[in-house]
């Protein structure tokens, strides 16, 4: 979660230094950095609580799924919904990478499903340990 924020700060700094303030504004990089940092903290917090609970517990699964859902929102925000549009002078550049973002969201969904599968897989041991 830290690396993307640092990456956004670096890109903002580089563009500002190279006279690309217009692109910083068009991409709303300062606001995006704030959003990515805030959502990243939510993901970290949910992942932290997930780690408190043992494998097989519903609480671990709930926090696991919730943390991956938050990670999905974080990813979608960081990727700006899969498309960007830059305008400069007479030129306009649009890039649509929605398919890439959807693939990554698929990976996040699999990670979410992992916590469900993990709960089902360890459920008997967890119930046995409680009794």
């Amino acid at each position, binding site marked *: 979660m830290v690396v993307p924020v640092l990456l956004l700060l670096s890109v903002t700094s580089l563009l500002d230094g190279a006279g690309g303030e217009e692109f910083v504004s068009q991409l709303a990089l300062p606001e995006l950095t704030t959003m990515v940092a805030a959502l990243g903290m939510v993901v970290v917090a949910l992942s932290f609580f997930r780690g408190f609970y043992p494998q097989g517990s519903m609480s671990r699964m709930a926090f696991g799924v919730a943390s991956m859902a938050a990670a999905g929102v974080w990813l979608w925000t960081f990727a700006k919904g899969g498309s960007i549009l830059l305008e400069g002078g*007479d*030129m*306009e*550049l*649009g*890039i*649509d*990478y929605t*398919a*890439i973002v959807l*693939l*990554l969201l*698929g*990976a*996040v969904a*699999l*990670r979410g*499903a*992992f916590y469900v*599968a*993990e709960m*089902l*897989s*360890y459920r008997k041991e967890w119930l046995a340990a409680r009794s």
Partner: protein
Amino acid sequence: MRWGPFALRIGAVAMELLVAAILVLSILPLATGGLEINTPEGASAVSLQDGVLTVGFPLEVYNGGYFDIDDVKVSIALDANGTVLRSTSETMNVRSGMVNHLDPTFSFDLGDLEPAMLASMLFERSEMVLDIDVEGKYALGLVGANVSYQRTVDWEPLVSSLVISPGEPSWEENGTAIDLLVRYSFDASSLLQGMETGMELTLLG
């Protein structure tokens, strides 16, 4: 080994690695100058036939990346006071690791124009908005890009400096008719050179 969770985790990691590999292999070659576009000297061709203006821009494109650039389409639009001439090239593919010879051709049917606008384009100098739009897909079609370039260009008339010399007409009787000789001259765009010219006169009295 708990195969269910293991398979899901491996699946997620595999998808992430796949995306990472695609990103690295697609961005790095292009960022390091792996795409070169050259225009062969004097290769562009402009012609006007049967009212259709045809413009060809042969290009040599070297794609040094690992992925083809697919479904490349170039659109050109000319906007003169709201009237638009638009043409789109055929879909082209830029293969990776080789020089691709592309020949996008654009045809504008001047017959689509209103007579007043056509006359204006034929005889008057004006300003037009030229809009060039290039779109294509990259990285196995996962990334699409669109570049638009718009600028105002001067439109040179196809016919200019039209001079009719009515002051010294010569005529001769031809049976019951009279043949009237009217001298005229004009500058013609290179597009029109070699073509036949006709003139229609109406005498009012």
